């Protein structure tokens, strides 16, 4: 099993720091270095860094690049300025989700970079190549040549500028980026805090990791990456989105531009919207301290009406909360539901899916 797992370019750093390592998305990744709570709080209050080199990078370029990306991507890249980033999904014709991803408009004409989930790199690349028939584009999986660090937290800008010597980073607006010396610096993240995602060669990423570590930036594992993104209401593929869930059901319809353009899966979304959703992703807060976890049933009067997709005792709010996919009849804010946790059921109320106010730089 383990020998089939891929290692990122920072693997030796994690081992040297004594990280707890575990498989994720085909890679052997650090879950925590000290403990999840301390790492989570470091990102909320100061600055933390994550090895996210496992993420996939797929470039799309050629005369038909804009037309092609708009064909496979739910958000609208028409007229996108260079240096801009959009979040959205690739969908199957039935409207369920191939993957959620970021699209970077490159600083060259007809050129985009797609950043996809580690677990879906091969699937996405194959999907893109299959969809590319008839389009004059070149689709290249560049994942193996990029390393990536996510530098996140209120002190992230100071560390980018002073610790890493990247003065241009301070001028970046949310969801924009620049390229310099073969490096991409992007004002994006997956924590609900301000921060940057920095893509560079394996060698440069290793140097940056050491520099940030020496400056007191806290190394953070995937454990707190999940608690942070969950509190900020951000979905994780395989939980809130999957090949059985559409963006409308996930409450991410704003990233699927069904009125603006055609794309794979659009007709299914239009039909789903016209027919009315049968289920939707909601937040649920429990009054009790019991912790709702993925897979636990949501019930009303003893009958299952949904299932938890992610849940925690939220570290930043100290509340037991979850995101769940629930039958439409029970999705109004304030609806009373119950969650079955082992032998008992605990009362909860339907809330927004975001449990923590995000602190993005506009």
């Amino acid at each position, binding site marked *: 099993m383990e020998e089939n797992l891929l290692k990122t370019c920072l693997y030796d750093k994690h081992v040297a720091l004594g990280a707890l390592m575990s498989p994720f998305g085909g890679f052997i990744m650090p*879950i*925590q270095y000290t*403990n*999840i*709570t301390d790492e989570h709080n470091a990102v909320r209050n100061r600055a933390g860094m994550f090895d996210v080199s496992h993420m996939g990078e797929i470039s799309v370029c050629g005369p038909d690049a804009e037309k092609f990306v708009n064909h496979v991507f739910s958000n609208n890249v028409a007229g996108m300025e260079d240096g801009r980033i959009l979040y959205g999904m690739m969908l199957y014709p039935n409207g369920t989700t191939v993957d959620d991803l970021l699209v970077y408009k490159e600083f060259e004409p007809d050129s985009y970079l797609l950043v996809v989930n580690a677990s879906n790199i091969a699937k996405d690349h194959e999907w893109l190549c299959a969809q590319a028939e008839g389009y004059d584009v070149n689709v290249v999986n560049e994942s193996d040549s990029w390393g990536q660090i996510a530098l996140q937290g209120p002190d992230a800008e100071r560390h980018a500028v002073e610790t890493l010597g990247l003065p241009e980073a301070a001028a970046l607006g949310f969801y924009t980026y620049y390229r310099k010396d073969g490096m991409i610096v992007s004002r994006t993240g997956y924590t609900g805090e301000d921060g940057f995602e920095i893509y560079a060669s394996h060698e440069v990423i290793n140097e940056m990791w050491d520099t940030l570590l020496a400056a007191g930036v806290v190394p953070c594992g995937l*454990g707190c990456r999940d*608690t942070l993104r969950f509190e900020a209401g951000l979905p994780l593929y395989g939980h809130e989105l999957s090949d059985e869930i559409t963006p409308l059901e996930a409450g991410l319809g704003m990233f699927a531009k069904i009125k603006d353009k055609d794309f794979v899966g659009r007709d299914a979304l239009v039909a789903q919207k016209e027919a009315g959703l049968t289920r939707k992703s909601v937040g649920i807060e429990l009054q009790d*301290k*019991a*912790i709702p*976890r993925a897979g636990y049933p949501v019930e009303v009067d003893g009958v299952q009406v949904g299932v938890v997709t992610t849940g*925690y*005792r939220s*570290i930043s709010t100290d509340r037991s909360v979850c995101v769940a996919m629930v039958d439409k009849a029970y999705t109004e804010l304030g609806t009373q539901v119950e969650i079955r*946790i*082992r*032998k*008992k059921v605990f009362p909860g109320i339907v809330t927004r899916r975001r449990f923590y106010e995000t602190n993005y730089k506009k």
Partner: protein
Amino acid sequence: MAKTVEGLYYSESHEWVKVEGNVAVVGITDFAQHAMGDLSYVDMPEVDDELEAGEEFGAVESVKAASDLFSPVSGTVVEINEELEDAPELLNQDAFANWIMKVEMSDPSELEALMDAAAYEEMCANE
């Protein structure tokens, strides 16, 4: 290295039992708390719950995961450690000083199926 305490009984699922007359005082071992990491919640049984040996009676939860607890003996829950409801971290601080429940045993001979400290340590060494 996780510690053990002499004179207690140990289960394969990492609970310890201290016998006080006909009552089994039950907790989780130091090995178990160490493996779980910082605990954020203890799902407690209720007084008067009837338990069979090997039956799930609650859980301990860290940020990341829940781990079920199994009763090492059969009997009736007579007391629970309510302190843990607000301070699950006590189990991390001293797993042997902080018990979870007390069970009035219906069949004390079940204790013979449990391990002593030496046998438990050997089992943990092989995990």
